[in-house]
């Protein structure tokens, strides 16, 4: 998993509440066997004017000129500003996969759906909760300033505007540790690799039939 330490990046708006996982990545793209490549279908129904098909080349599709992610000023955005209850809906991890694949590293919202919030940390995305009033000011600053960026410092737990306004946010210590060090659940378990190997050696002596039986067939 990618570590998240500091980020200075372009910001894009998703200015509506209750953006659900189906909106983030519509159901018909979930049959894929992949976990990468969902970026081109992020917000598919809002972004394009036609109906998307899995595995389709999206470069020739008619885009919705009114959808902010299609505006030239928000290209290459890495930070998404959003509203209440972002990520509600299904428990599948496709939503963070799609955001990550598109290039987002951070979503800032007044609140998130629980499972989505958890899934973000598992996938190297940082979800930041700030009060609604802070979001109001940030949206305003974003609309007023083309090329608006934010600086995010996970270690210091701060979001800083170009004008020098600093917002602090809360994050669980353990999750912060994992994200700062790029540790996903697997990375964490692999820190115990010695204990796993010791266990294997012990069991190999006691119950040898558990090992190797399928290797020769």
């Amino acid at each position, binding site marked *: 998993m990618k570590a998240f330490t500091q980020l200075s990046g372009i910001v894009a708006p998703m200015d509506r509440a209750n953006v659900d996982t189906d909106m983030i990545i519509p159901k018909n793209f979930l049959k894929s*066997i992949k*976990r990468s490549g969902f970026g081109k279908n992020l917000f598919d129904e809002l972004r394009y004017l036609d109906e998307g098909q899995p595995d389709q080349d999206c470069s020739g599709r008619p885009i919705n000129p009114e959808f902010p992610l299609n505006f030239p000023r928000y290209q290459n955005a890495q930070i998404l500003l959003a509203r209440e209850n972002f990520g509600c809906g299904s428990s599948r991890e496709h939503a963070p996969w799609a955001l990550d694949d598109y290039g987002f590293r951070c979503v800032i919202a007044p609140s998130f759906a629980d499972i989505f919030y958890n899934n973000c940390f598992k996938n190297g995305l940082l979800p930041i909760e700030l009060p609604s009033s802070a979001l109001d000011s940030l949206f305003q600053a974003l609309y007023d300033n083309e090329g608006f960026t934010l600086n995010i410092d996970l270690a210091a737990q701060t979001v800083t505007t170009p004008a020098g306004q600093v917002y602090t946010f809360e994050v669980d210590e353990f999750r912060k540790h994992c994200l700062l060090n790029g540790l996903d659940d*697997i990375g964490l378990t*692999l820190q115990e690799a010695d204990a796993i190997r010791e266990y294997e050696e012990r069991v190999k002596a006691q119950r040898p*039939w558990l*090992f190797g*039986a*399928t*290797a020769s067939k």
Partner: protein
Amino acid sequence: MASKDGISKTLYDKLWEAHLVKAREDGSALIYIDRHIVHEVTSPQAFEGLRLAGRTPWRVDSIVATPDHNVPTSVTERASGVAGIEDPVSRIQVQTLDDNCDEFGILEFKINDQRQGIVHVIGPESGACLPGMTIVCGDSHTATNGALGALAHGIGTSEVEHVLATQCLVAKKMKNMLVRVDGKLGVGVTPKDVVLAIIAKIGTAGGTGYAIEFGGQVFRDMSMEGRMTVCNMAIEAGARAGMVAVDDITIDYVKGRTFAPNEAQWDEAVAYWKTLVTDEGAEFDQVVTLSGDEIEPQVSWGTSPEMVVPVGDTVPNPEGEADTTKRSGMARALAYMGLSAGQKITDIHLDRVFIGSCTNSRIEDIRAAAEVARGRKVADSIKEAMVVPGSGIVKAQAEAEGLDKVLVEAGFEWREPGCSMCLAMNADKLGNGEHCASTSNRNFEGRQGYGGRTHLVSPAMAAAAAIAGHFVDVRQWLK
């Protein structure tokens, strides 16, 4: 669970302790996984995750793979292997499983390998799953393997990746529940009826948070395949794991299977397996008892596996239910199922019959269906009655016994092995509003096809329903 004397342990306690790599401070633990069974639907993203992170499987010899969820089961579509799969998504999934297994050197029973079959059938059948093992698979019916005296449960895709990469699962210890069924089952009453009766009694959430051990005389007398049918549906009672203690029936079953311990290790293994029973004096957090003598053939009438009644009963009336949430759930189920309260179960007419799935597709199930079908004919009103063996080996065995002929003569279709209409990911599906007598494990809305109406029953009951065109008490035919 602390026992009265502090020493006695349940079977589950023993299995847990034998696989504990490390207890973590937050109450979770790293549990070592002995056997990982992999199929085409829940594994592709796990393998891709491994590759993206530059990881490789921790222990390749712990993994056995096979495609089952969406392989076609018709003889013609199956004939040309992967390339012949018509549905593009299914084809890509099966192909991807092949590619991943080839890349990492994983043992796979490929689509037309005789050893291919439903994950939970091929595990015990090949001896890849053994007593005392921890067994996981990305399908919630993995508890089937608990019949061997093993700790087996289903996992999600991210856990599949975790087990591939680390050979461990992060888990929390569950509580212990004993479901004891004493007495003796009557003729025509099968393991499927036992487990449906258990679910009817404790409800679909009754086992949530528990590992269930099935004990009592009925299970001591039951064959291994029957025990698998029961453990298979532990999840329908809310429990991630179900298990049965090891006895001579278990050991006889394992003996001689391809991946069973070799001769040099056999005695040692058996001595260990014999310890895999709950100690006298061990305490369970909860005990539920049923009398085997009282269990009758069961039929589900609703859209949840707890909505089940004996075949001689009528469809229950929601008005009789005091709990308002339950009452409205029942009313909704009746509307979806197109049934009315008070209707006799034996008056429910069927459109299709499905005998198969990891619950009931083993040789004993096929025999039970064939016994009922022998010399009889599927009713004209039945559009399709299919029998889908759980593996190529089950299929070959059934054919060696001539059961396929009996079934085909009676008007059943005899298919290639796979999950088939259990979840309708392939072409085998119910039409909107169609009633199906099914030996599978889930009767949720749309499970067997959009608008499909599933009635869960045993293989003998399903075969009898196919012949009569409606449900019948199969005991009347077996006297």
